[in-house]
C-alpha cells in the first residue's frame, strides 16, 4: 500500500545543514499497521510528516498504491493520506464547533450529504449527535482525540498516519483510544503508520515495527519478536529493557506501598 525508499530529510539551520532522516526504507501492505519507535530526536516524526506532505524538502521515493508522491500534491492524493496528531488540544481549531471541523474537509473535496456523514463519522468514534455543536473547550482530551480521529476518517482515506495519538491522554483514556483505532482498522481495512516513543503502544497496535535512532532505521522486526525480546541489535534490546525496567520499578513501588498499608 505504501512504500518508502531511501528517504532523506535535512533541515537548514543558520547556514548549516542538519540531517534529520537518513536513507529510511520500509513498506507497509494494505490493512497492516506499521510502527516507528525511537527516542525523541530520532527522526520518526519527521518521517511521518514527510509522508503526510507537510515537509516539502526531501529526497528519496514515496509511493502510495504504486503512485509516486511528489513534493506538491493534488487534492486526490491528499485525500488518501490523513493524520491524527499528538496534541488533541492543538489539533482542533478553538473557534470551530465539532460539526464545522468535520464539515471543512467535506466541503474542500466537494463531498455531498455532509450532515449524514458528520453524524456517521461521530458515531464511528463513539460520540453521539449531542457533540455536534460543541466547541473544543467543552470536550475532554479523549473526546477531542475522537473528534480528531473522526476528522481524519471522514474523507475515507486508505492510510492513516498516527503521531503519538495517545501520549497526551490519561492512561485510562489511552486504552480506549487504542481500542478504537484497532477496531476502526479492522472494520475498514485501513493501513496505519504509527509513531510513538512508547513501545507498549506500538506493540499493541502494530504487527511490524522499526526502531529509529539518529535518523536511521536500526532494526525492523515483528511485534511478537519485540514482545519476546528476540531482537538483533543492542539498541533495540536497550529500548525493551528500559520500558520493562520502568514497569518493574513502578510495580515495586506499588508493592512497597501495599506493604506499608498492611503493616
Amino acid at each position, binding site marked *: 500500500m505504501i512504500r518508502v525508499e531511501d528517504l532523506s530529510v535535512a533541515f537548514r539551520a543558520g547556514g548549516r545543514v542538519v540531517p534529520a532522516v537518513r536513507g529510511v526504507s520500509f513498506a507497509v501492505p494494505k490493512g497492516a499497521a506499521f510502527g516507528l519507535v525511537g527516542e525523541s530526536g530520532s527522526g520518526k516524526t519527521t518521517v511521518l*510528516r514527510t509522508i503526510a506532505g507537510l515537509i516539502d524538502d526531501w529526497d528519496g521515493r514515496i509511493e502510495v498504491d504504486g503512485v509516486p508522491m511528489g513534493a506538491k500534491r493534488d487534492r486526490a492524493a491528499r485525500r488518501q*493520506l490523513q493524520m491524527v496528531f499528538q*496534541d488533541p488540544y*492543538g*489539533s482542533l481549531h478553538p*473557534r470551530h*464547533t465539532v460539526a464545522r471541523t468535520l464539515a*471543512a474537509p467535506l466541503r474542500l473535496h466537494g463531498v455531498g450529504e455532509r450532515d449524514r456523514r458528520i453524524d456517521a463519522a461521530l458515531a464511528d468514534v463513539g460520540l453521539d449527535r449531542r457533540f455536534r*455543536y460543541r466547541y473544543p473547550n467543552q470536550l475532554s482530551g479523549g473526546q477531542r482525540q475522537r473528534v480528531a480521529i473522526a476528522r481524519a476518517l471522514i474523507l475515507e482515506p486508505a492510510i492513516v498516519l498516527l503521531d503519538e495519538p495517545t501520549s497526551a491522554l490519561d492512561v485510562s483514556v489511552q486504552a480506549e483510544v487504542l481500542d478504537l483505532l484497532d477496531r476502526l482498522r479492522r472494520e475498514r481495512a485501513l493501513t496505519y503508520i504509527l509513531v510513538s516513543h512508547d513501545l507498549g503502544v506500538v506493540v499493541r497496535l502494530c504487527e511490524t515495527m522499526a526502531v529509529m535512532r539518529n535518523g536511521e532505521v536500526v532494526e525492523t522486526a515483528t511485534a511478537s519478536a519485540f514482545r519476546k525480546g528476540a531482537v538483533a541489535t543492542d539498541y533495540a534490546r536497550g529500548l525493551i529493557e528500559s520500558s520493562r525496567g520502568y514497569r518493574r520499578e513502578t510495580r515495586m513501588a506499588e508493592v512497597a506501598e501495599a506493604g506499608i498499608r498492611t503493616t
Partner: protein
Amino acid sequence: MTAMRAWLLDEAPASPAQAAMGRAYVAWRDFAANPLALTGLIIVLLLVALAVLAPLLTAHDPYAQNLDDRLLPPGAAHWLGTDQLGRDILARILYGARITLMIVGLVAVIAAPVGLVVGCVSGYFGGWLDVVMMRVTDVFLAFPRLILALALVAALGPGIENAVIALALTAWPPYARLARAEALTIRGREFIDAARMQGATAWGIVFTQVMPLCTSSLIVRLTLDMAGIILIAAGLGFLGLGAQPPAPEWGAMIAAGRQYLFDQWWVATMPGLAILVVSLGFNLLGDGLRDVLDPRR
C-alpha cells in the same frame, strides 16, 4: 429567564446558532462581572444614543447664531452656556458626537481590516513577502502620527474626510504588527497542519483559520486606540486642519474657546470634558474586552 439561561448554557446545543449564542453569553457574563468595563460600555453606548437622538434631546440649533446671547454662563436656558457666537454649547456637543463617532468609525473600518489582512498574510506566508510587507509597515510606523496627518491634510486640504484618510493611513501599522505576531504563533499549530493535509489552499487557511483567531486581540487594541484617535482628531480640529467651522467638532470648539478661557471657562471646558469622558469610556471598554476576548481561552 431561567429557561433562557438553561438554553444558552446547554451542554449539547442543537444548532450552531445556539452554540455561538451560548458562547457569547458566557463571554458576556465574564464581561458584566467587571464593573469598570460595564461603565465603559455604558459610556460608549450613551455616546451613540446621544448622537443619534441629538435633535430630540435639545431644542437648540447647533448652528444658530445669536449675538445677544453670546458667552452666557451655564443656566436654565442654556444648560452648558453659549459660545462666542451665542450658540448653545450642549447642542453643539451633542451634534459634535456625530462627527466624533464618524471619525472613529471610519478610521476603525479602514485601518483595522487593512492591518489584519497585511499582518495575517505576512505572518502566515513568511519569506520574502513577509520581509517586504513588514518593511513597508516599518516605513509607515516611522512617521510621527500627527505630523504625517498634518502633511496629508496640508497636501489634500483641510476637512474632515482628509483628516480621516490621514488618521487611517497612520493607524494601520500597529494592527499589522499585532496580527503578524498572532499569525506566527498560529501558523505552527496542528490544526493548520490538519487543514493543509485536507488540501486547503494557503489563502483559504489564512482567511478561515488564521484570521478569526487574530481578530479578538485586534478588537481589544482598536478599542484601546479609540481614545488616541479621538484625541488626534480633536487635535487636528484644534489646529484648524480637521472639521471646518461652523461644524461643531469638539477639538475646534476648544480652539475657539481658548481666548475666553479665563473669563468664560465653560466655552472650552465643556467640549474638553466630553473628550475626556468618551476617551475614558473607550479605554475602560477596551480593558474589559481584553479580559473577555483573551485568545488563550
